[in-house]
């Protein structure tokens, strides 16, 4: 690194930023000083890039779907792969520019203030945020939401690793409660250019908001492939499953959280079916809305999820269960995944506390008995 970026140099306030870019390109030449003389080749950059790669299929499909939904809305339902993708790409790209621009700027600045190296955590959050917002969200709103999420969701706690809530979901919840009209109903989910007219009888509401009605595109395959309106990345279960495969193969995300979340959702969904309050079969709940996306990419965040293995089962199960409870019993919110995860993020330390306390007392008994 050039001397002017070092402490005391003219541009020392850029130290963290320059260091971040330098270590991004080249693994630093630092050697171990204390303790183990060898270290594993793994680092957080690698873990984060794998996580980002796992979300790429959902992002690519989401871009295409933005174009496809736009076509449907103006009465052009052809499956034009490239044209639809290009349309969606141009729509989603600004979201990414804003998400990474605002988020990383804050991240770099706060790393500099704390005099630390820049943590890679935002690479993943910044990639997820555009995937969980409506494509037509005004960019200034997104910028505000990102700033809120990064500052109050992460930096005030001390940066990545210290946060209580998933930063990407915090951005969404900020939009959801600050600008509710933008985040629900039948507008917002479909991107339209100025002056374009909706065709008669078209509704852009997500399948969840229309639960059970005979709207087009709510068949199993439409839901599974993702040919429905929704947040950019959440619609395609196939693309999300691809991501889940990468995460589970590399062991970066916990299969326990994913599996127990599915079990929790199925359990409550089944109760709903049996009691006759649910309009769709319980397995269809898994395909709708943000459930799959949340389960795979959000609930499994290692920082905000439960830390202990038994805790992960409880945490995941309750996320799935709560999500469906909100869907079934709360007419105000069509979707419960976001709130379920944030609520369980809040409860995760409590779950861990109980698990660890139980473990400690069991261990103490064992030690005394020995």
């Amino acid at each position, binding site marked *: 690194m050039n001397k002017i970026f070092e402490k005391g140099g003219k541009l020392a306030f850029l130290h963290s930023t320059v260091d971040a870019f330098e270590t991004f390109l080249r*693994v630093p*030449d*630092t050697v171990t000083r204390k*303790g*183990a*003389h060898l270290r*594993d080749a793994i680092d957080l950059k690698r873990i984060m890039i794998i996580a980002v790669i796992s979300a790429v299929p959902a992002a690519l499909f989401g871009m295409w779907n933005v174009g496809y939904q736009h076509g449907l809305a103006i009465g052009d339902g052809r499956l034009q792969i490239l044209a639809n993708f290009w349309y969606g790409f141009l729509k989603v790209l600004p979201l990414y520019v804003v998400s990474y621009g605002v988020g990383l700027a804050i991240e770099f600045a706060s790393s500099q203030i704390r005099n630390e190296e820049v943590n890679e955590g935002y690479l993943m959050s910044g990639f997820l945020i555009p995937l969980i917002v409506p494509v037509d969200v005004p960019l200034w709103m997104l910028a505000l939401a990102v700033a809120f999420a990064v500052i109050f969701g992460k930096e005030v706690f001390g940066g990545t690793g210290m946060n209580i809530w998933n930063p990407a979901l915090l951005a969404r919840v900020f939009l959801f409660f600050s600008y509710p009209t933008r985040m629900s109903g039948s507008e917002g989910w479909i991107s339209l250019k100025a002056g374009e007219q909706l065709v008669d009888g078209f509704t852009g509401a997500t399948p969840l908001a229309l639960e059970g009605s005979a709207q087009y595109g709510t068949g199993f395959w439409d839901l599974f492939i993702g040919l429905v309106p929704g947040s950019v990345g959440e619609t395609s279960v196939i693309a999300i499953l691809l991501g889940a495969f990468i995460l589970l193969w590399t062991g970066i995300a916990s299969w326990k959280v994913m599996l127990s979340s599915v079990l929790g959702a199925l359990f409550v969904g089944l109760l709903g079916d049996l009691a006759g309050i649910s309009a769709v079969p319980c397995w269809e709940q898994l395909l709708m809305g943000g459930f799959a996306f949340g389960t795979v990419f959000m609930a499994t965040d290692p920082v905000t999820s*439960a830390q202990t293995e038994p805790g992960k089962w409880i945490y995941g199960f309750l996320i799935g269960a709560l999500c469906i409870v909100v869907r079934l019993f709360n007419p105000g919110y069509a979707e419960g995944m976001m709130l379920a995860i944030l609520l369980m993020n809040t409860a995760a330390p409590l779950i861990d506390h109980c698990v660890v306390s139980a473990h400690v007392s069991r*261990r103490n008994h064992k030690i005394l008995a020995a």
Partner: protein
Amino acid sequence: MSKNIVLKKGLDIPVSGAAELRLSKTVQSDIVAVRPTDFRGFTPRLLVAEGDRVLCGSPVMADKQQSDILLCAPVSGCVKQIVRGEKRKLLAVLIEADERVEYQAGAPADLGAMDADAVKAALLRSGLWPFLIQRPYGIVADPAIKPRAIFVSAFNTAPLAASPEFTLGDRLADIQAGVDALAKLTEGGVHLSLNGDNYAGTPFHKLENAVLHCFKGRHPAGNVGVQISHICPIRKDSAVWTVPLLGLAAIGRYFRTGRLDLRRKVAVCGPAAIEPAYVEALPGTPMRALGAFFGGMTDEIRVVSGNLLSGSNEGTEGYLGFFDDQVTVLREGREKELFGWMRPLRYKLFSADRSYFSWLTPWRKYELDTNLHGGPRAFVMSDAYYGRVLPMDIYPLYLVKACLAGDIEKMERFGIYEVLPEDLALCEYVDPSKNDIQDIIQKGIDLMLKEMA
């Protein structure tokens, strides 16, 4: 033989450069160091001055608090220099060795006729007492107490570790005498842990007067701390002692011959070692005397006394540690690797994480170096990521965080009494956030010692 204990968690790091099972030479160094820094909880008081003549076995320093705990000269010769560091901290006493070792007068002891106090007195007098390590905290054993039991690990799973069958297999009689002596110091017995995969192949299963245990598993299954936690977990109020196998052999030989003999076979190994093999050497032998194994390029290599995970970085000017029978030589990884973490394969590196592909080629050995492969970060991965390499009934990350916070109560709850830094060395190795976990644990133990004193 007691039951076979199988440990599923753990990791064997496939690093190249294992020492060939042959004794290449006996290292006769003209300088031998006696270092108080090898021992935790030992505050030295000098008993010699520069120019004094010492015999092999005569005391060089004593502990300030427990003046009967002695460190003795492993050779005869003349005290050449007393090395002090900052604040005049005593670092080493350098002894210029005679060509022929002159032993302090001593006679074989009749172990059968000795009681616990006599054994204790003999051990203290011999300078072999510091081989006894007391847990919790891993300090030099307190002669005033009676330990609950004494534990010995008869195998070593650390990367490239010396094979105890090769280094000590021919000293079964010494080890047996050591077991017999130590068995008098405790009512809980001497517990000896064997490698369950090589039970028949090791001579140590023939030892009598000891409780034998079998452990199967990857590193750290050979760590005595891990074994204790499975045999009988350590309690705060009743300490246990551990002794390394080579210490047991030295103790036995002392009782059999009346002489202090610390010579041992040392594995000189590691990816940067030239023709790795065994040598015979004394603790305190300067690394310079092993120069043939690492050639001339002294800046580019690191010489570690002990294993790669928890040995001490001695450099080419350092000395062999008191407890060590292994010297590991590896290259300093001071290259910047372009796009390192982005490359899909990184064929030359090993990772226990499946986001690399080295788990597909379990037979390969790697020429690893000291590069950190990343920068320090806050803990991000959850406890299980670390727990998979720690076969103990504790939550490692919770313990580490309690140590970081200096919260004594939580450290107690999460098991600080059961661990020493070396037990969590693999957690440090796999940590993607590159924290110095062993250092954190050591600081936690230091804090406990201070607060509990």
